[in-house]
């Protein structure tokens, strides 16, 4: 109970500290989600229904991943630079809760963009979704894994480097990952890389949750994702607990 209370208080602290930029952040999230759908639509012209469904169900994953993999490490890098992380670490709060509260903040921030991305995609390409009952926990798993990887990244790297790496990751996620198009279009070696990376399973999971009649996720992909989630959360927690 104390842990839940402390997580909510920490989240409130982070939330209020970002309050000036919150509306802007949400706008950016919405923009990314909508831009993915509409922009890719322009790239591929008038897509056939399968491609359109792929695009529309890939967009929310892009939003979730950018928030977790880009926004979270940038916030952590910022709090390292301005000294708030050092101060927070002196508080009598279990180390894992810093991670939990950041995940909470960013997941909540990502939600409007994600929902709007789905709606815009469905409207733009005139497709029908078939939502699975487990979509919400699946979304949480994706969001948590992305944020934990981002957190671990920012914990290990010095702040300027973390910012550079995350910016590069945006391009990897947008262009070189099988999120908005099928994996078969990529060179074989990149396909093999993605078999072990977390991005493809994230996309598959969200896709299967949004259109369960058309897509499914293999047990192997789910396992890869869960392992990434556990390892990244563990690494982030370890980094927070570390004493020099």
């Amino acid at each position, binding site marked *: 109970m*104390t842990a839940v*209370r*402390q997580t909510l*208080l*920490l989240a*409130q*602290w982070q939330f*209020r*500290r*970002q*309050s*000036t930029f919150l509306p802007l952040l949400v706008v950016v999230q919405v923009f990314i989600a909508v831009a993915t759908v509409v922009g890719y639509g322009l790239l591929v012209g008038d897509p056939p229904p399968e491609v359109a469904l792929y695009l529309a169900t890939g967009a929310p994953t892009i939003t979730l991943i950018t928030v977790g993999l880009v926004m979270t490490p940038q916030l952590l890098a910022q709090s390292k630079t*301005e*000294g*708030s992380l*050092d*101060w927070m*670490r*002196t*508080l*009598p*709060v*279990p180390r894992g809760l810093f991670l939990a509260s950041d995940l909470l903040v960013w997941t909540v921030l990502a939600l409007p963009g994600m929902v709007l991305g789905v709606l815009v995609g469905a409207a733009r390409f005139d497709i029908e979704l078939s939502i699975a009952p487990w979509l919400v926990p699946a979304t949480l798993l994706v969001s948590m894994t992305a944020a934990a990887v981002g957190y671990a990244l920012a914990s290990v790297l010095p702040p300027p480097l973390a910012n550079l790496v995350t910016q590069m990751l945006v391009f990897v996620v947008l262009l070189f990952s099988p999120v908005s198009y099928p994996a078969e279009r990529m060179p074989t070696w990149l396909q093999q890389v993605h078999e072990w990376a977390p991005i493809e399973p994230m996309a598959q999971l969200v896709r299967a949750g949004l259109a369960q009649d058309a897509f499914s996720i293999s047990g192997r992909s789910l396992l890869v994702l869960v392992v990434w989630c556990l390892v990244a959360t563990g690494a982030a927690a370890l980094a927070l607990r570390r*004493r*020099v």
Partner: protein
Amino acid sequence: MVQDEVLTVRGLRKRYRGRRGVQANDGIDLDVRAGQVVGLLGHNGAGKTTLVNQVVGLVLPDEGTIVLDGIDAVARPGQARARTSIQAQANVPITGLTPRLAIELVGRLRGGERSAVRARAGELIEALDLSPWADTRAEKVSGGIARLTAFAMTVVQPGRLVVLDEPTNDVDPVRRRLLWQQIRRLADEGAGVLLVTHNVREAERVVDRLAILDHGVVLAADTPAGLTASRQGTLTVELDLLPGATVTWPDGVLARGSSRMREAASVPAEDAAEVVRWAQRQVQQGAIERYSLVPASLEDVYVDLVEAERHDAPAEEVAA
């Protein structure tokens, strides 16, 4: 049984690795009791921050023990943090919040109950004269107000041990007095307070004990009176020279240093009257502008101790 010792540090050593490894703490012994304000003096790089970071489990000691309110702080950093509240030297960034909100949130994060925290926050804001700024966004408040806010955040729900690292920095003289009162009150209400400061003159009036830290070791630890005891019966004469003038001190006066147009020396109290007559003559002859006679202060003791250590330092470095 009441746990009287709040903090007991023994033989604490920490060396930072790297190309130019630094022995930040080199065998520190330190005690803080409930109800005491213990001042920790030391110049930049003396090892104060390293000591504090080890107490709250952010830095792992190489050697030595830290017992905090009966808890082994090295083995159980989480429990140590639950018993300590810290105001770090760097200000806590609270942009986006107001001082009152930041104080209340931290109080509740530290386990305080909402209404009690609100009442205590209001009390601190009042006592530190922060009311005009309490509900202003943090980006609009001055450095001194931010510093006082950080202090209030630390003590709104104080631990058994309260560590304050340079709490008076940037604070205006009027509010600094209010701050010292609150620090004294913390100890009177039962906390052990470890006060890290450069501000020897002001700390002197509040602390119960003082430890002087240099090169990672405690050079001396005693009450303010105990530390100045060796210099009781000694006074300090300070002269402001006129341009181009030089002075030759009378016999029995020990020169203690000079800077541009200023000279200082120590005088045995029984010779003081004679030195005053001598100094008055110098004024009349136009050699000095004015003079003053003050009791030996802690600042003098501190400078003496650290300078004595400096003279030994080269030999020590060879040994290392």
